[in-house]
């Protein structure tokens, strides 16, 4: 590994750099174009116009009308607003149950549990298959006339596994329920059209595709079904009180425009890079791909290198200037095994030995190859001090890897 040290960032599902064009587009809003869009004078009108333009850019990315986009403070807030807001804004008191899955982001899971705790809202968590994908028939079996909302993510943040959102939309609507999709990981990596998905809400976060942190959006098909979660202002049609984050929104608009025009090209670049990391299952013994057999995001490889403790691998790679994830960024400071991998049936050992590699299209293929070689060496070294001397080989459904196989 005799190579000059260069940082290689392989945790793009956690966040990514702000694109240069986006940073340039934002600069004027930090200095001369500082107006509050709610004020009546010229500088404010300018700010209002830029918010309007950003709304149109995000709508174009998602394939919906401009008026369906509501700006928020990020993906977590979008998910909170869709779930809590639709519950608080509901007309029929008997429709109060929420159906979701066991692999959702904490902002979805915790929003549902918050409603359960404070309002007694029943929540049904539908399990996923070994591939990490929810079976639409399981969603169907969980439905009933009391279901208010179904919430299923578009792509999983840890495994990249895509969920059958179109089928779920059809099932939810057939039962008269609303359908929310957490699209935070999918947008910018896949072409997304909310009209084709036929969902009622779709959450996005700017920093996942070249925008700033702390800003996001929620597609809302019918604003009448939502109640606001914060009071004190008329902004965003009364659904999100507070002065608009104009620089963040302008950045989101620019990032959306770029993502929209480059999505196919970026997808191809990421797929080529992903192959380098998927191929590690052939280079490292006793290594499996979490989410194998399901369609995945083009940029995500979640690897279980049995007996190589993931935290040791991640920190060892970090010293080499290579940054990978051990699970969702929000959870990687804890040593609890990933809830998502456990929900897919992985044993505790397998979950503790899984790393997430997620790339961006700007990654140099040579850097990807170098990182892959370093991962091979690192796993070999970590295994020496964390694995039994003979780790042997396991069958497909060995309990080392899968629980209750």
């Amino acid at each position, binding site marked *: *590994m*005799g190579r000059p040290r260069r940082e290689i960032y392989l945790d793009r599902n956690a966040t990514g750099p702000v694109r240069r064009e986006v940073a340039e587009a934002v600069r004027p809003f930090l200095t001369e174009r500082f107006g509050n869009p709610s004020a009546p004078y010229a500088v404010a009108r300018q700010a209002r116009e830029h918010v309007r333009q950003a709304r149109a850019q995000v709508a174009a990315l998602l394939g919906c009308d401009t008026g369906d986009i509501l700006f928020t403070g990020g993906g977590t807030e979008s998910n909170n607003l869709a779930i809590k807001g639709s519950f608080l804004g509901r007309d029929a008191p008997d429709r109060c149950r929420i159906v979701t899955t066991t692999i959702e982001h904490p902002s979805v899971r915790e929003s549902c549990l918050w409603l359960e705790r404070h309002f007694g809202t029943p929540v049904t968590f539908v399990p996923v298959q070994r591939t990490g994908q929810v079976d639409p028939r399981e969603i169907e079996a969980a439905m009933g006339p009391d279901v208010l909302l179904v919430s299923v993510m578009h792509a999983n943040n840890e495994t990249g596994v895509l969920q059958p959102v179109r089928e779920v939309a059809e099932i939810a609507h057939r039962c008269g329920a609303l359908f929310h999709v957490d699209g935070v990981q999918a947008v910018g990596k896949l072409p997304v059209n909310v009209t084709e998905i036929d969902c009622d809400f779709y959450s996005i976060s700017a920093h996942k595709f070249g925008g700033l942190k702390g800003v996001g959006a929620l597609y809302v098909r019918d604003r009448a079904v939502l109640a606001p979660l914060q009071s004190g202002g008329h902004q965003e049609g009364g659904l999100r009180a507070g002065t608009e984050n104009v620089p963040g929104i302008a950045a989101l608009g620019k990032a959306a425009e770029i993502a929209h025009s480059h999505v196919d090209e970026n997808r191809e670049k990421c797929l080529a890079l992903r192959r380098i990391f998927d191929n590690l299952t052939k280079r490292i013994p006793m290594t499996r791909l979490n989410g194998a057999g399901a369609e995945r995001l083009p940029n995500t490889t979640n690897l279980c290198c049995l007996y190589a*403790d993931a*935290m*040791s691998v991640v*920190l*060892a790679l*970090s*010293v080499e200037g290579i940054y990978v994830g051990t699970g969702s960024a929000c959870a990687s400071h804890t*040593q609890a095994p990933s809830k998502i991998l456990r929900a897919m049936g992985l044993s505790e050992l397998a979950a503790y030995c899984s790393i997430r590699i997620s790339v961006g299209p700007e990654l140099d293929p040579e850097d990807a190859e170098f990182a892959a070689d370093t991962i091979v*060496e*690192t796993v*070999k*070294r*970590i*295994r*020496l*001090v*964390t*694995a039994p*001397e003979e780790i042997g080989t396991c069958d497909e459904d060995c309990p080392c890897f899968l629980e209750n196989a």
Partner: protein
Amino acid sequence: MTSGPLELLLIRNEPPCRKCHKTDKLLRAIAEDHPGEVTVRVITAGSPAAAEFGAVMTPMVVLNRKVVSAGLVPLRSGLERLIAAELSARRSGRDAGA
């Protein structure tokens, strides 16, 4: 050829937790088996020297600037094998690689 003894670096909590204590004991036992060849240096996770390694999870063991374990007590047999490879590489003037 690199001169001086091979250093086993332990980054631990202050006060040390149970795992840090066990790792410390293990590293010192290994060093005792290699007099003059292996030494142990202990630093705390909050020290400037630990900051060089970026993120830290204790106990963290570093050998020749490579992290070999983090957040757990390493297996003695594996550590012995890594040290043997390092010492052998030093004697022949090579890099032990993994």
